[in-house]
């Protein structure tokens, strides 16, 4: 069965070149890489190093590089605050909600739009459209819609005699935030799943149907397993996005009411730019970076191992 799937293995590799030609090729490659490499070093590696460096100083961000070395004090201080614990909790809640609700929902929509239904191209475009909007526009849009006093959401709900404070209440702010996140991102995940689904050969589905499999069984035993790589990458993107979640929260709530929707990135912004404790904010960013990095490595090593075989795990060596 698996022989039918075209994976990276199927791509033909060119025959090895003679040594001299290979060396010449390396120079060419290096030259072509140079501009990107310089930009990468300047804009990605250098800031990361500076953040690591300044995270061990007490520094208000002014004047050259920091000088007041305080060791790991910023980190011990961070781990001792209530807000950091809350940030982690919010992260966990959003990741769980995303993986357990948002992604299955996207998958369901994708399966639905894979059927032959009237106007499915239109649906696909409409569902994907929110993803194209910038986070800021989404934030402004929903702060108007979810306004407790004059927002559209409450006007609609009032027809049924209901109403909610949405983002203005510590108890409802996280579900509301998740709602906005889902609105913005389900179309994106739907698109990934649709693309993944279309890579599954119809022969398999047909064969299953001929064998008398119900549509649920076909989905459960054929579509879902073959969508595995797609689902794993979509979970990965979703988690990394959630760790770094900032724009949407900043526009919608600024982390409030009283920190109940604060994420790590919001805490970092608060200390770095509003409170001028850049050293401490750098420590927060370092923790975020390490969290993302560890997650990415562990996830790729253990979960996405098969999907990425040959791409990252084996350094591209020939097998």
């Amino acid at each position: 069965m698996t022989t039918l799937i075209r994976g990276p293995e199927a791509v033909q590799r060119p025959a090895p070149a003679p040594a001299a030609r290979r060396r010449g090729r390396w120079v060419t490659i290096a030259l072509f890489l140079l501009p990107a490499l310089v930009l990468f070093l300047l804009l990605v590696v250098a800031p990361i190093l500076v953040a690591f460096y300044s995270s061990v100083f007490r520094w208000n961000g002014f004047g050259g590089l920091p000088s007041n070395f305080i060791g790991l004090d910023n980190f011990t201080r961070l781990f001792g605050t209530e807000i950091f614990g809350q940030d982690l909790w919010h992260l966990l809640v959003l990741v769980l909600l995303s993986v357990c609700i948002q992604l299955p929902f996207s998958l369901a929509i994708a399966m639905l739009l894979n059927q032959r239904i009237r106007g499915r191209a239109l649906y696909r475009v409409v569902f994907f459209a929110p993803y194209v909007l910038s986070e800021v526009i989404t934030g402004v849009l929903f702060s108007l819609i979810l306004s407790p006093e004059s927002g559209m959401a409450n006007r609609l709900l009032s027809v049924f005699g209901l109403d909610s404070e949405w983002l203005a209440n510590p108890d409802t702010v996280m579900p509301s935030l998740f709602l906005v996140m889902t609105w913005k991102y389900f179309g994106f995940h739907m698109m990934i799943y649709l693309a993944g689904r279309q890579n599954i050969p119809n022969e398999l589905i047909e064969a299953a149907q001929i064998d008398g499999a119900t549509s649920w069984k076909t989905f459960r035993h054929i579509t879902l397993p073959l969508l595995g790589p797609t689902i794993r990458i979509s979970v990965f993107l979703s988690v990394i996005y959630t760790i770094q979640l900032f724009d949407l929260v900043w526009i919608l709530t600024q982390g409030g009411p009283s920190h109940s929707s604060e994420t790590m990135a919001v805490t970092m912004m608060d200390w770095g730019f509003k409170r001028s404790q850049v050293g401490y904010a750098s420590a927060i960013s370092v923790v975020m970076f390490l969290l993302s990095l560890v997650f990415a490595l562990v996830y790729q090593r253990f979960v996405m191992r098969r999907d990425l075989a040959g791409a990252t795990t084996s350094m591209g060596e020939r097998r």
Partner: protein
Amino acid sequence: MKRSLVLIATAVLMAGCGGGGGGGSSTAPQQGGSPAKVTLEWWHLSTAEPLKSLWAQRAKEYMAKHPDVTIKATVLENDAYKAKLTTITQSGKAPDIFATWGGGVLRQQIDAGLVKDISSDVADVLPTFTPAALSAYQFDGKTYGLPTDIGLVGFWYNKKLFAKAGITEPPATWSAFLEDVKKLKAAGVTPIALAGKEKWPGHYYWAYLAMRIAGLDALKQAATDHDFTKPDFVAAGQQVKALADLQPFQKGFLGAAYSTPDGQSATVSNGKAAMELMGQWAPAVQKDSGKGLGDDLGFFPFPAVEGGKGSISDAFGGGGGLAVGADAPAEALDFVKFMTEMGNHSKAVESGGVLPVLKGEESAVKDANLKQVATLLAAAGGYQLYLDQAYPPAVGQQVNDSVAELIAGTKTPEEAGKDITEVAKSEG
């Protein structure tokens, strides 16, 4: 290959670093004799009328007088302004001319060498300003900015809604104030509008209560001994809590902003709440964000607290001033002086956009409420700058944060005091 790569990377890095520290100005080098073209970067946050057009008008007039000067204004709303200014100052630059509230934030910028000491250049005009207006921009006898506005925070209220609740005159004491809040609630009126999402409007309540209960000196002392756990401060927190427990704020206030179409200002402006605690700009922003109350708008000072150490004549607030970047061309300061000349500044006072900062300018105040503010200001016994400006940024923001938590009911007055103290100690 490797070495040349490192060389190129280093060269690019150094070029990148060398470009910094040039200041926000783009002054062409002075060529002997003929005046060079000068572009002045001017950042301010007067996004509401009448100041928005008035300031633009001033810039135009100045440019007409000085054809070689171009003034490029960047006008941003409050929070965005603070964020953008912080970002650029931390990169080691400052705009040529920028709006400032003075206090601890300006102090930090001065310590970083970003602000020009203008003491000797403004010596000739200094005596024309009122001392209260100048105080926020002077440190250790040196002057770093000139004021364009000074005012105080007080209650702006809707006379009609007060009358509806049977309140005949504004409360003079805190307990009378709490009673009036209950009366308003009983009459079906939302007593107070508050922007809970932006934390600075909430901090006014705690700051004023701390001033009335603990006194001005206690707040000044706290800046040096970093102790916000004293009984008087906790008592101020308890009064904030007592107010919040009456649930006096509009629906969804924890998510409300200040100047947005459904924010604090608009809520009062559209008659949906009876009052707000806000600075002298409140009427202008109300007009901008909603229908406006017209003659129904009244003003009363923050009430006295029975048995408190502070006096009702102590004023809390701030103004606005213009500071000049350390590397700004001479024209920058000249423009600041131009802006604050009697003839020019009194036009802004007449428009109701700002309050007098110059001696003898009081007569230009036309609006009855603003006249009351100006009178209170002139008679003020003591003056306290906004705490989120007076203290270093980390402490000021923590005050805002802790008061917001108090109002939301997630922290007790004791915990709030402890949190502020902790941050104040971390600034040391």
